[in-house]
């Protein structure tokens, strides 16, 4: 699989990925139109007082927030699976995939936290809720994968980076249930919607927009992953190619009798 991959040229795009990109962008525009324009704000009447209650316009953020959150976890699970694959098979394909998934997942995770916080301000009347299990788990996850990316960036040797990254990703995923349990017992109460879908007035348009959100963010994830994977692959090839070229140049210099050039200027 690895040998047949096209890695020449100056772009990570291909015919297929351009179509995917165009569909994704179109999908995003449509989603924004539905989420922020065509759907109604969440307004309900209080059963006894008759007051207007609900999430009002803030509900529109959920069309982005919920799919983003789901695909954050998809990306991190993908990273963990690829990391486990790397530890078993030790092939660059798994490592490049794990790195790509972690990076895209971290961006998604950051967006989940930001959109959730903006949504929480009007609805929960707070930017941040310490006792909430999902908030805290997602934040810890975000911090762990920030560390993962920092570790990969700091490790020069690509094999060491792959191995260490794989261990960190697996530890993060193993640790996650413990973080989740501990925060749950910690406060034993949660503001987070048990099921967002259940509480909202699910009309046809609301449900459609939410499903569209899942579809569109699935495409965004796939598109970003594809390109990030190809960038990672090119980076790796470049590193290997660079060393091979340098060795070939030195060999050529020695064969040509230019020993000074072969051992460097200082010699």
């Amino acid at each position: 699989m690895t040998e047949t991959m096209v890695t020449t040229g100056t772009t990570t795009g291909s015919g297929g990925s351009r179509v995917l990109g165009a569909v994704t962008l179109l999908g995003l525009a449509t989603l924004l139109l539905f989420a922020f324009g065509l759907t109604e704000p969440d307004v309900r009447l209080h059963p006894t007082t008759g007051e207007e209650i609900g999430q009002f316009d803030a509900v529109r953020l959920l069309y982005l927030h919920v799919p983003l959150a789901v695909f954050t976890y998809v990306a991190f699970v993908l990273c963990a699976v690829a990391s486990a694959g790397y530890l078993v098979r030790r092939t660059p394909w798994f490592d490049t995939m794990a790195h790509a998934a972690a990076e895209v997942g971290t961006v998604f995770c950051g967006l989940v936290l930001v959109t959730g916080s903006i949504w929480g301000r009007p609805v929960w009347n707070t930017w941040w809720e310490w006792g909430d299990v999902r908030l805290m788990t997602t934040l810890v996850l975000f911090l762990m994968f920030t560390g993962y990316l920092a570790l990969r960036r700091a490790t020069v040797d690509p094999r060491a980076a792959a191995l260490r990254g794989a261990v960190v990703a697996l530890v993060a995923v193993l640790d996650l249930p413990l973080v989740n349990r501990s925060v749950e017992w910690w406060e034993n109460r949660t503001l987070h919607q048990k099921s967002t879908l259940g509480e909202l007035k699910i009309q046809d348009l609301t449900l459609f927009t939410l499903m569209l959100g899942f579809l569109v963010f699935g495409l965004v994830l796939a598109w970003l992953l594809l390109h990030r994977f190809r960038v990672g692959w090119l980076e790796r090839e470049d590193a290997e190619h660079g060393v091979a070229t340098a060795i070939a140049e030195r060999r050529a210099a020695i064969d040509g009798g230019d020993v000074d050039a072969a051992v460097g200027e200082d010699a």
Partner: protein
Amino acid sequence: MSRFLADARLVAAKDLRIEARSRVVLNQVAPFALLVLVLFGFALDADQRTLRAFAPGLFWVAVLLCALLAIQRSVSVEQADGALTGLRLSGMSPAALFIGKASAVFVQLVVLEVLLTAGIIVLYGSEVAQPLLVVATGLLAAVAVACTGTLYGALASGLGVRETLLPILLLPVLAPVLIGATRAFDDALGSAAVDGWAWLGLLAVFAVVATAGGALAYGALVEE
């Protein structure tokens, strides 16, 4: 098995002997631990009621900060003169090496915890309501921190940015330990009505996973 334990004991004894002779943890980390307690006092306006109420959390944050230093030290003694290569060539199993290194960190952490416990009793006026719970929490949390820290120390070892990288890698992973140990101390020091023994279960699970996972992964990391 006896070979395994003997190897682990050798490595632990080596690290503790280095510590006994260099006194880095005793002369630098231990005073730092007390300093952190004093800094919390300054930051919280030296109100002993506040300090006593938050003593469990402050105690465990101080332990984690000191643990970072102890782990850095544990990694750096293997960096000098290619010591780790020597250990790898000695024929010991990497798991024994891991258990040995983690045990040495564990012993140092327990000493620091004893010191910090005395610190919160004297400085914050905390009272130990359940000594057994304090001891059990201290030991289990020290196992969890020592094993996770030794594994992550190996992950960050050999990197120029180890000192700055280790905290960001290690501290989020230790979040459950901080929460669990703080809650257990809340009960043991009588600062909140929670079931501290239930939290020990979480700490125990973490400690077992960290020990087993660390022993498994350490080999791959030091032999890369």
